[in-house]
């Protein structure tokens, strides 16, 4: 499909990568130093910076189609396959991810145009530093450098989560997030040290080269498990996921857009990148596939169940994100280019839809001062337009064609089935339908007063009282907010209908899994290898059918949720049987930081056992 000319690196393209990291930092510095500037200036500056970064990323993406872009910082080019410097590497997949990051940031800043007065220009400065962290993490080709940018993303994210200091839950969610993420990061760093002791390397390519064909002993397995731990915490994979619901439920809506849309997915990206490049030559693929398909499956099922039980709309969306991460992980864990392509496209489509949903929840919060599905019952009746958008986004989340979620899901389903998991498509359909159904149920209740008025029976659930994102109630939706929402949904739609765009994911995934090409090109500037067989990313009959089935099932689940009390006797009995296990599951999500820390260790031990024991 692509004729690859053997050229040496375009130095200009290489400069794009550090510039993409530096621009938001410089603008953030300007915003901090010039705090006295009028609000609209800082807003405009911040949006312009995000758009500028998006432009740079777009240019980087364009130059990756033929070849990876490799930038050695400080000019420390490798000699004889070794460099003391740090490398930034862009291939279509991470350049696309960086572009997605910048685009979502622009939408989030547009949405929050003129809000958060009390935090002043500090808010935009933090958002831009967050963007810089995500750019750096996406482009970095060095394990320790990834840790640094991981911590940058983290530190800024904790502050952004706790931004609404008047809110009781907000500050608590921020602390849970901060402690668990930092713990994960320190475990990762311990893993880096362990690997360094064996290889004396930090670059991904150098590490991969050094570990090639080594017998996977305890050090390699342990190093892998420790390093992955941090990324999996960020990706909110069960049982490292507890922080996510707490943080997403309470962070300002515009911040949630980035958390759910890209930050969590970046964790997954980091995990996949490190596995492929560093460990792809030593840890056997079958072993990894088995372990992480199981973990992804558990993640998807647990989170989908939790999602359907929520009445706090943002918490519901947060669990839906975890469920989708489970699906992405299953697709990535097939360790095929097809699975990776499907996951990447699914991530991109999901980002637009989920971001739009968080902003819609933000609109409700600003208008009614609550995001509680039960309290808001029928409150949005006069705002049908928003309601229709909400339902549409719910259907798109479930995988309604032609949204990009549907084609991504379709490609992933086929890849999972082909990899020897015939139950894969059923899992994808049910999980996406349950989460989409939960969203549709909430939308129907809030905007259309559908079903009987819900009443509590002493449920200990987190309620949806929350401090508004803005200081006063907004009677009408400002055009900037609506523009951001419609733009995000449209983005997901367009990605699903422009063949040139979605089919590009095949090439991106092929490059991503081309381990030898990555190492050779990074260390010796070897030209990218010509690939003859690219995974086919296009609409197939099965993806259209399964997507439609998911959307229909979502509607069925939504109505089941609305009218479950009127269910006939036998169905109600079955439903009641689910009660006790559900209570246990909800009890586990205790909001208690000590429990979460213990679960991190359990998860670490579990992954160690899943990966390590079969190798004995």
């Amino acid at each position, binding site marked *: 499909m692509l004729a690859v000319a053997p050229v040496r690196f375009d130095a200009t393209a290489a400069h794009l990568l550090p510039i993409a990291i530096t621009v938001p930092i410089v603008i953030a510095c300007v915003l901090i130093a010039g705090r006295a500037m009028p609000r609209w200036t800082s807003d405009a500056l911040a949006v312009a910076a995000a758009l500028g970064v998006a432009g740079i990323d777009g240019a980087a993406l364009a130059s990756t189609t033929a070849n990876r872009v490799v930038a050695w910082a400080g000019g420390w080019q490798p000699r004889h396959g070794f460099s003391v410097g740090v490398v930034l590497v862009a291939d279509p997949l991470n350049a696309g991810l960086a572009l997605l990051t910048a685009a979502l940031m622009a939408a989030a800043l547009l949405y929050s145009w003129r809000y958060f007065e009390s935090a002043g220009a500090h808010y935009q400065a933090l958002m831009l530093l967050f963007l810089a962290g995500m750019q750096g993490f996406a482009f970095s080709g060095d394990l320790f450098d990834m840790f640094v940018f991981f*911590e940058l993303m983290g*530190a800024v994210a904790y502050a952004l989560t706790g931004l609404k200091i008047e809110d009781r839950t907000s500050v608590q969610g921020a602390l849970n997030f901060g402690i668990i993420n*930092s713990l994960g990061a*320190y475990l990762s760093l*311990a893993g880096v040290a362990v690997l360094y002791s064996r290889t004396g390397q930090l670059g991904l390519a150098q590490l991969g080269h050094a570990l090639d064909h080594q017998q996977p002993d305890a050090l390699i397995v342990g190093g892998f498990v420790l390093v992955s731990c941090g990324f999996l915490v960020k990706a909110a994979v069960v049982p490292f996921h507890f922080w996510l619901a707490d943080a997403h439920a309470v962070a300002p809506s515009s911040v949630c857009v980035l958390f759910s849309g890209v930050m969590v997915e970046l964790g997954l990206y980091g995990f996949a990148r490190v596995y492929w490049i560093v460990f792809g030559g030593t840890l056997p693929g079958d072993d990894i596939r088995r372990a992480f398909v199981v973990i992804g499956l558990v993640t998807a099922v647990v989170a989908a169940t*939790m999602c359907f*039980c929520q009445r706090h709309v943002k918490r519901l969306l947060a669990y839906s994100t975890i469920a989708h991460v489970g699906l992405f992980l299953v697709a990535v864990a097939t360790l095929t280019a097809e699975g990776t392509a499907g996951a990447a496209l699914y991530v991109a489509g999901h980002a637009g839809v989920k971001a739009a949903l968080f902003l819609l929840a933000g609109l409700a919060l600003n208008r009614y001062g609550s995001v509680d599905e039960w309290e808001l019952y029928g409150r949005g009746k006069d705002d049908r337009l928003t309601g229709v958008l909400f339902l549409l986004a719910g259907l798109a989340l479930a995988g309604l064609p032609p949204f990009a979620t549907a084609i991504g899901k379709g490609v992933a389903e086929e890849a999972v089935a082909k990899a020897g998991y015939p139950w894969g498509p059923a899992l994808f359909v049910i999980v996406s339908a349950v989460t989409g159904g939960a969203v549709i149920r909430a939308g129907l209740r809030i905007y259309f007063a559908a079903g009987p008025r819900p009443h509590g029976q002493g449920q200990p659930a987190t309620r949806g009282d929350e401090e508004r994102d803005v200081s006063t109630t907004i009677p009408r939706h400002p055009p900037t907010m609506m523009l951001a929402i419609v733009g995000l949904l449209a983005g997901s739609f367009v990605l699903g209908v422009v063949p040139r765009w979605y089919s590009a994911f095949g090439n991106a995934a092929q490059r991503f899994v081309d381990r030898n090409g990555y190492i050779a090109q990074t260390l010796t500037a070897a030209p990218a290898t010509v690939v003859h067989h690219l995974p086919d990313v296009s609409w197939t009959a099965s993806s259209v059918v399964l997507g439609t089935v998911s959307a229909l099932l979502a509607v069925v689940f939504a109505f089941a949720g609305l009218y479950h009390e009127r269910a006939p006797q036998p169905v109600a009995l079955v439903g009641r049987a689910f009660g006790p296990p559900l209570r246990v599951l909800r009890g586990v*999500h205790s909001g208690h930081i*000590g429990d979460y820390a213990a679960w991190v260790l359990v998860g670490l031990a579990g992954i160690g056992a899943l990966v390590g024991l079969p190798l004995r």
Partner: protein
Amino acid sequence: MTYYAYFVAGWLLLVGVYGIVRSRDLVHAVVSLSVCQSGTYVLLLSVGYQKGAVAPVFGSTLPTSTPVVDPVVQAMTLTDIVVGATVTALLLAIAVQIAKRHGTVDPDELVSLEG
């Protein structure tokens, strides 16, 4: 002695997590987290240590052929220390806000996020 340094590092990591698990006070949890982190300092520096080698600072007198300990792990540890301190500051600030909103910093009494 061969592995003692590594075990000390591992011990600090785990004992820090133990501190978070048993914590009855969020400030205590944050401080325990920094104990966890000091485990990573010890691990990194022990990995880079070489018996009989000197610090990797040559000055104008020390010949550059003298064996020195690994400077790379030291640079990493420096970064790690800064990161740890600033993250601790952030978490402490959050803990102060929690105390203001909830009137308590005991995780057992904070029950606004459940299920």
